């Protein structure tokens, strides 16, 4: 085999010469450890290679082998519950080989070659199949049935297919296609930088429920939609994404730790296996795939980890599943792009980022969507993407944040001031948005016909309160008229009783939709009940004395939804009593 050689090493960038058949995107193996890199530029007989592993110890003259294949993901049973690095090497397997510390050059197949899976055919000999058809299934975990698809680009007649226990490389079926016989296995591969094809895109109609009130009720995300969660350090990006990974009503969760903390990934790895899905009662790990490329692992592999994650997600989408991706943090990925661009001496745009940063961000979020998959039967799957953004100095006008906002459907803008007072999730209700409110409002009507009305009113009260607060900051709350003070009171009740949701409270960590809609309604009804009293001249202090206020604000901590009605009755009691006292009609 012809080989090229290194002529320069400079951080993660390697310059090589005489690399045979070099094409952009070819994966190469560099040096004695066969480190993995990708060709990113070609000039004459020189190539620039982005190396995904630590380049220490490489030297001019070392060999470069061209695999002539792009960076690919291995797809098949065995993905779920696994934790991978950015190149899809299983970190738990690496640990058994290399010990407690990561070591470059350690190679292990992403999917076990020995494990046998029970394969149940869904088609018979002689059946005609096309790309994307399900030819059979295997139960990957208690929660997920792995559906084996005819690989993209293939179609023909099934000539042999048998139920049985197979490894992922054993032939499970033979496909006759244009007179050729092709063995099908449970494993296939896909180049990570190319989106997997589908038949057509569908409009988004359903929320991806997360059990987090401020998200589901105020700034929802749709299945197949996109969201960004920017915020300075310590404002709650990671905890929010962890919460979504735990409680989101998706079939598959893909969590990408991209350039963030090791202890946080350890937290996920350790605690997910203990947690139960509130809907199925099964263990959360049975639907979760993790990619952990932490901040002190090679920078360039952050790039790979993002594409690896989204490719695996699309593969499960194509099986007809709703998949949700969390990427924490996309800023670290952008920094990896900046790093390599700087080494290539490209002319930077803003803050040193390359001019193609907008394209890359757009392409990533474009891989979200709800689609009709390939295959002869009608099947729908979705990929929802949520990305954390870490703006330097907490300044949202920096390139990565401002660009990301252009491409996402939902913004959860985290607010340092809220985080300081431990108002979590610190999602600022004035700065955040969701383009999906309208479409999911139909869905909410299954719980409350008037959902949109109450939600709109709640938003209005919060907005009004923020204006009043500005005045109060100058003249003091005491000097405000009572109707405005009532708004402040109700806004505070909405904040504490609804928006604040403690991630580590055993009950409040997850809030089911029914409870959300009832709570929201009751808070607004509280306003509707008390407003006439204020109009009739009853002082605000009297309303503040209601015992039911505390109970109302504590409702979120109670599991029983029925209790909400009890508190509502108490509110009504107190309203009536007070009205009577002042001789006011209600």
């Amino acid at each position, binding site marked *: 085999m012809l080989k090229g050689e290194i002529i320069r090493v400079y951080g993660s960038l390697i310059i090589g010469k005489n690399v045979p058949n070099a094409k952009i995107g070819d994966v190469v193996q560099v040096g004695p450890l066969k480190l993995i890199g990708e060709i990113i530029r070609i000039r004459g007989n020189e190539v620039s290679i982005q190396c995904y592993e630590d380049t220490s110890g490489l030297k001019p003259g070392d060999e470069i082998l061209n695999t002539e294949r792009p960076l690919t993901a291995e797809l098949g049973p065995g993905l779920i519950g696994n934790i991978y690095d950015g190149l899809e090497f299983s970190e738990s397997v690496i640990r058994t080989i290399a010990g407690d510390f990561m070591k470059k050059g350690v190679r292990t197949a992403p999917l076990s070659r020995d494990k046998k899976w029970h394969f149940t055919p869904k088609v018979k000999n002689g059946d005609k199949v096309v790309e994307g058809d399900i030819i059979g299934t295997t139960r990957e975990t208690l929660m997920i049935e792995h559906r084996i698809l005819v690989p993209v680009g293939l179609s023909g007649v099934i000539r042999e297919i048998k139920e049985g226990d197979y490894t992922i490389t054993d032939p499970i079926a033979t496909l006759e296609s244009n007179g050729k016989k092709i063995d099908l296995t449970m494993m296939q591969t896909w180049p990570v930088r190319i989106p997997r094809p589908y038949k057509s895109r569908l409009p988004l109609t359903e929320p991806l429920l997360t059990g987090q009130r401020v998200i589901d009720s105020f700034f929802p995300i749709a299945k197949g939609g996109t969201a960004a969660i920017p915020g300075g350090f310590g404002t709650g990006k990671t905890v929010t994404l962890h919460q979504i990974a735990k409680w989101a009503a998706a079939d598959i969760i893909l969590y990408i730790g991209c350039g963030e903390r090791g202890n946080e*990934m350890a937290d996920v790895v350790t605690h997910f296996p203990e947690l139960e899905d509130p809907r199925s009662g099964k263990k959360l790990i049975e639907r979760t795939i993790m990619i952990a490329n932490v901040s002190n692992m090679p920078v360039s592999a952050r790039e790979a980890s993002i594409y690896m994650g989204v490719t695996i997600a699309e593969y499960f989408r194509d099986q007809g599943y709703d998949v949700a991706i969390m990427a924490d943090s996309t800023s670290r990925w952008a920094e990896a792009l*900046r790093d390599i661009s700087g080494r290539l001496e490209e002319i930077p745009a803003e803050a*040193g980022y390359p001019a193609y940063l907008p394209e890359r961000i757009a392409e990533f979020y474009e891989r979200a969507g709800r689609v009709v998959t390939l295959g002869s039967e009608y099947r729908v799957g979705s990929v929802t993407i949520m990305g954390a953004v870490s703006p330097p100095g907490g300044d949202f006008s920096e390139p990565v944040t401002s660009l990301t906002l252009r491409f996402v459907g939902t913004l959860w803008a985290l607010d340092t001031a809220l985080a300081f007072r431990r108002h979590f999730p610190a999602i600022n209700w004035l700065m955040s948005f969701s383009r999906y409110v309208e479409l999911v409002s139909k869905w909410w009507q299954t719980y409350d016909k008037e959902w949109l009305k109450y939600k709109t009113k709640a938003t209005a009260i919060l907005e009004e309160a923020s204006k009043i607060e500005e005045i109060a900051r100058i003249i003091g709350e005491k000097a405000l008229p009572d109707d405005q003070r009532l708004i402040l009171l109700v806004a505070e009740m909405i904040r504490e009783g609804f928006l604040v949701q403690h991630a580590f409270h055993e009950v409040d960590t997850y809030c089911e939709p029914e409870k959300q809609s009832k709570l929201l309604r009751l808070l607004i009804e509280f306003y509707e009940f008390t407003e006439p009293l204020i109009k009739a001249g009853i002082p605000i202090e009297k309303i503040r004395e209601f015992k039911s*206020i505390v109970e109302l604000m504590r409702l979120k901590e109670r599991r029983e939804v029925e209790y909400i009605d009890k508190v509502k009755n108490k509110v009504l009691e107190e309203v009536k009593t007070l009205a009577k006292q002042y001789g006011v009609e209600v």
Partner: protein
Amino acid sequence: MVEKYGLIYKTVREIRGPLIFVEGIKDALYNELVEVKLPDGSEILGSVLDTSAGMAIVQVFGATQGLELGVTARFTGDVIRIPVSSEVIGRVFSGSYKPLDGMPPPLGEKREIHGAAINPTAREPPSEFIQTGISAIDGMNSLVRGQKLPFFSEAGLPHNIAAAQVARQATVPGKEEDFAVVFCAMGIKHEEYEFFRREFAETGALERCVMILNLADDPIIERIIAPRIALTIAEYLAYDLDMHVLAMLTDMTNYGEALRSISIAREEVPTRKGYPGYLYTDLASIYERCGRIKGKKGSVTVFPILTMPGGDITHPIPDLSGYITEGQLIFDRDLHLRGIYPPINVLPSLSRLMKDGIGPGRTRKDHADVSNQLYMAYAEGVKARGLARIIGEVGLSERERKYLRFADEFEMKFVNQGVYENRPIERTLEIAWDLLALLPEHELIRIREEYIREYHPRYRKA
């Protein structure tokens, strides 16, 4: 006699700041250790930053005075490694690991100073509460073993006194274990170092201490390797010798400046304030070397101190540190001027690992709720204080006045304490409850009702 290994070059063609350009070398290893010999016979270390056929760019980690084109550079054929053994405990080294205590150079197993990342699946999530005896930390921002938790301070604030207090008082309640302190000074003043040395000597910690010293008048570039040497020793003590290691790194701002000067010499495209784009990753390669490993007894707790230039927390060094560390403890000039010690402003402070270190069996079951409520109440109080400055206290509502009073008392009684006052966590929580009792009970919305009934002074007396 041991033959010196490696290839010697005398072909230095250019010297630019801490960078030397060596010509005629065919195959320097990326990151290779280079020993540069100065005309006066002294030697400084360097490593290869860029290697190509015919040229290597070496960054040196020592004083560049005296460097000239005629120096010899020995390419050692290996990356930088240092010998480690239990013997290093109690010793003092320079920032490039030369003995400063008159004893011979250390021997032992050689470890690469850049250290590999701990495999995420090998990490044990830190969960052992360290009691520092300081209420603002223990009560509101608890430290756990294996965490990285920095002080963000400003010049002139008593962060060193507080750091020494932490080092002196830190214990895991109910445990007597093997511990060590690895102290890494980067660009701090002699008197600051003398202060720490005295402190450690007084408490007997000195013999459990390894010092890596790069003081204000030592070569700036040495600061690049000093913390890496310190952490290599820390990891060895923790994971090979089962010790609980507290790695104190001060001052990380000086480290960042050293990194910047190399980047500028290399003419790299800067991002903010002249700092290179890789500052985040570089800092992470230091801070991330904390933690616990499954099945191992020891731990590395990283305790960095940094001064925020101009008190600006959005400055790249505190900013990117905050994105990496597991929280931050923020020193506040205003509190200091009002005589509060330690002047820790709890509102912007945070310990991300607190939740795993507190609660029943660790501290107390009401701890999380109490701290949460204190945050909210103090934030309200500070808001009321701001308002009172504009409209006067008379303009405040009854409720606001209560919160204002709470904030004052909170600073005076909870945050404020003696330099030698070591408060057990129970005492910290007791003070907290006494303060919360200043507020109407229905305001304590973040505390579970059952805890109110168990711990609120009103019910405690009954």
